[in-house]
């Protein structure tokens, strides 16, 4: 069972308190009416499935209820960064480099 840090509660808690919300940083177009069919399909359905670092949305649904983001290594299941919703996507390459040293 994963151990997850909620950046709002600022505590580590077991995975059972959380729910994964899929890939992070998929922005909903501000004016959907202007989005092309391709853009909309990209937004709706297209997701990366990386072997390695992935930025994911998590919700502390059995806790504070807040959504936040986390960088997880999909191979080792290790979390490398937790950050609040709205903060920019971190540089995954830099994180990978730092973790690999």
């Amino acid at each position, binding site marked *: *069972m994963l*151990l997850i840090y909620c950046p709002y509660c600022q505590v580590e808690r077991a995975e059972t308190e959380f729910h994964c*919300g899929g890939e992070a940083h998929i922005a*909903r177009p501000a004016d959907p*009416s202007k989005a092309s069919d391709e853009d909309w399909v990209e937004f709706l359905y297209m997701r990366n499935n990386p072997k390695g670092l992935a930025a994911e949305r998590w*919700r502390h*649904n059995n806790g504070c209820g807040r*959504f936040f983001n986390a960088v997880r290594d999909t191979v080792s299941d290790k979390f490398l960064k937790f950050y609040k*919703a709205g903060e920019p996507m971190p540089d995954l390459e830099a994180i990978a480099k730092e973790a690999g040293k």
Partner: protein
Amino acid sequence: MSQPFRTEKGGRIDRGQQLSFTFDGEQMQGHKGDTLASALLANGVHLVGRSFKYHRPRGIVTAGSEEPNALVGIYRNGDQTPNLRATQVELYQGLQSISQNRFPSLGFDVGAVNDWLSPFFPAGFYYKTFMWPKSFWDKVYEPVIRAAAGLGKPPKNPDHDHYGNIYALCDVLVAGSGPSGLAPALAAAETGAKVILCDEQAEFGGSLLNETSASIDGKDPADWVAETIAKLRAMDNVTLLNRTTAFGYFAHNFIALAERVTEHVSNPDPNLPRERLWQVRAKEVVIATGAIERPMVFPENDRPGIMLAEAGRTYLNRFGVKVGHKVLVATACDTAWQAAFDLADHGVEVVAIADMRENPPESLISIAKARGIRVENGCVVTGTLGRKRVKAALLGRLMTSGQVASAGQVECDALLMSGGWTPTVSLYSQSRGKVVWDAEKGAYVPGKSVQNERSVGAAKGLYGLQASLENGYAAGEEAAKAASGKSAKITYAQATGGEAGNGGTLGAIPHDRNASKVRAWVDYQNDVTAKDVKLAVREGMQSIEHIKRYTTTGMATDQGRLSNMNALQIASGALERPMVDVGLTTFRLPYTPTTFGLFAGISRGDFFDPVRKTPSHDWVVEQGGVFEDVGQWKRTWYFPKKGEDMHAAVARECKVVRESVGLFDASTLGKIEVVGPDAAEFLERMYTNPWKKLAPGRCRYGLLLNDAGFITDDGVIGRLADDRFHVTTTTGGAPSVFSTMEDYLQTEWPDLDVWITSTTEQYAVAAVQGPKAREVIAPFIEGIDLSADAFPHMSVKEGTFCGVPCRLFRISFTGELGFEINVPRRHGKMMWETLAKEIEKHNGTTYGTESMHVLRAEKGYIIVGQDTDGTVTPQDAGMTWAIGKKKFDFVGKRGLERSDLTADNRPQFVGLLTKDPKVKLEEGAQITTAQNPATGTPAEGHVTSSYYSPALDRNIALAMVKNGHALEGKTLYVPMPDGSIPVEVTGTVFYDKEGARINV
């Protein structure tokens, strides 16, 4: 009673406490401290089971949890637990045990005929044989295979034991309490770190408990263990768990432990659980699981009386049991010699030590000679004699040519063997670490750590008492430092003796016998021989994973700990590829078999899943109402009167609602309070409908889509104030709608000033529906003018019900005049009972979900999830009226514009009337244009809802049909096994089409 193989003295058993037990009905004696295996051996019993496939007589091979043969059933409280390892079952007064996989008895087993027929049962036999004829699959083969499969018999009754569950956190978890486990536990504990030490055995100490030829700090190793455990026990920061197996290593250093709490006592405290599941989050883990000895793969190496050398030594030194009177020791490594010496010192005749090495250490040879033991170098066992117990062994001399020459026969009643040692890397492997081949040690050892763990001592191939202690202390200090930042000055205990041995062999032992006639076992439990592994390779299996599955080698309850390395070497030879390239199969959890009860814990019976009850529940039970499960909710399905079946009850309920009044418990509907200055804007963006212009005191039906454009939920939303909405959702959709709202609010529109709260549990809801509804509720409502003008259809207002604050909705899911009264949950029972009494005055009825479904279907109201399936748009459902076309955006708006969703030929929501009104369609039935379509014809749609309508006195149905809206009046067909049913496509509203009844 005599125990002919018990030593005069020594061992850790309590000779003052004699215990009686039975094995297959025979009464025997043992002592406190015995395992069932040691007690059986003390009574001279080696034959304890029959093998899986050939039903060969089998004896005890090990003294640990990796035991492949001695699987027994234990009777307790009138039931039997199968497949327990006798080497782990602790003896208690009155223990009753039985052998398995034999009929009619262990001594005479008719299944043993398989052994004579063994040439017909090679590897992959099942795959090759039970292919034809096909008619035999379920009639002949399956029953026969089922009867033959498995070892023990499963218990017949529900498990009457109970099981516990504990979550624990610690700095350092140490798995294993041999020298390399006790040292780190002590080192970490002395720093003040929180330590958990667990060991699968009853006693802590591991190999130290049978070490008589070494000392630690000048003390007997067992005494040092006792002192160390006493020291640890006195420390508040240490938890000691014996009889506790670390069976699973999960992500983020989450370790599962199985603690056996009461299985070892004859009269357990009924308040204690049988087992306890420990779910431990450890900052650091020290894996001190040691190593196990490998069997030697020589012909007929499976006879009772043949066991591992260190097991023989354990039975002698720890349990005071001689495994035989005339013992032959066959080995490829040094450690087995000590077993021979210890046995000789207890007066056992060691007939010979046959070491396959040309030059075993001179030091060992001289000790053996001093005891008068015959030593044979470069000598192997090439076969054994004896059916139910080994009688003699054939010896062979290894020639420089690689050939083997016969070296005669020796009589023996026990044969101890050692092919060397295999580190127990299971936990490391489960932690996702990759094992690496260490050519020098001839073993796979842990490689790089993936999680916060370290393997120590024999578990990483580091042998020798002093080395294990040093490695253990250092690991404990490092782990404590890493986990808690603490350190302390530790004095390392010093050991003398117990030096590491050399040597070892892998794979099949060469022999001079007819290779096509003799069998040498690799995997005892699954009856896999060296020949089977070679055959698998000949038949094309290249990967070790395929070889494993084809032969079933390594699939025993020990996960191949005993057999893997030998099988791997044999496969590597047959494949002509080096072992490292063949690769090792993965060690999976659980480490040892784990009971279902442990996993289930308290989640059984009523605790399996929460049950949600509505305020009317007790009243409904009293009235004899029938419930249906809707998710976790118990909802009333229908209220049968005396003599009524479901059909009659539902017909009556529907009729009464239309003619007079009905009362329905709608408390399960999801409720969400949406509050804040931007509440209307938020709903505007979430739901398809417009909300900004909805006046306070009014309600509107809301339709919720996902961004793909498909209907996901619906419900009535009432505006209580400019900044406050009462949103209702479907019963099943409540959590997901709430979660979706939170998602959009937090991540897409964090600028909106809105607060949402789930209030499903806060309100009890009674729906009063029917022409008399107003009269029924009027006496109890205060503060609200109920007249049609003041409180028209789709109104909401706050007032009181019997003096209790309420939110009153005028809404209808039946097509009749209707009200839904929301009161605080704690007043729900009062409200229900008050209304149930009141409706009697109007000859009304309570009604359940089935009538609710019929009444809504008569009106063509959709049920999301029944009439829709996640691919239905508002246009498909005929609900374009619910879409706010002028809105800038709402969830799903852009999705609806996708070309596929606006294309022709989409399934659309329609009504269906069977030409014969008595015929009821089946929900889910396919719809076609042709009366008798050819096989393979695609369906035009399917039936989503189908009921008998009391109001129309005929059957009605709703369906999704391709281009259905344009087909009104046309005839389609529903082909069923007993004939095609003609149906007419209609609109979805069957009753009161103009909707007059709702507005009275």
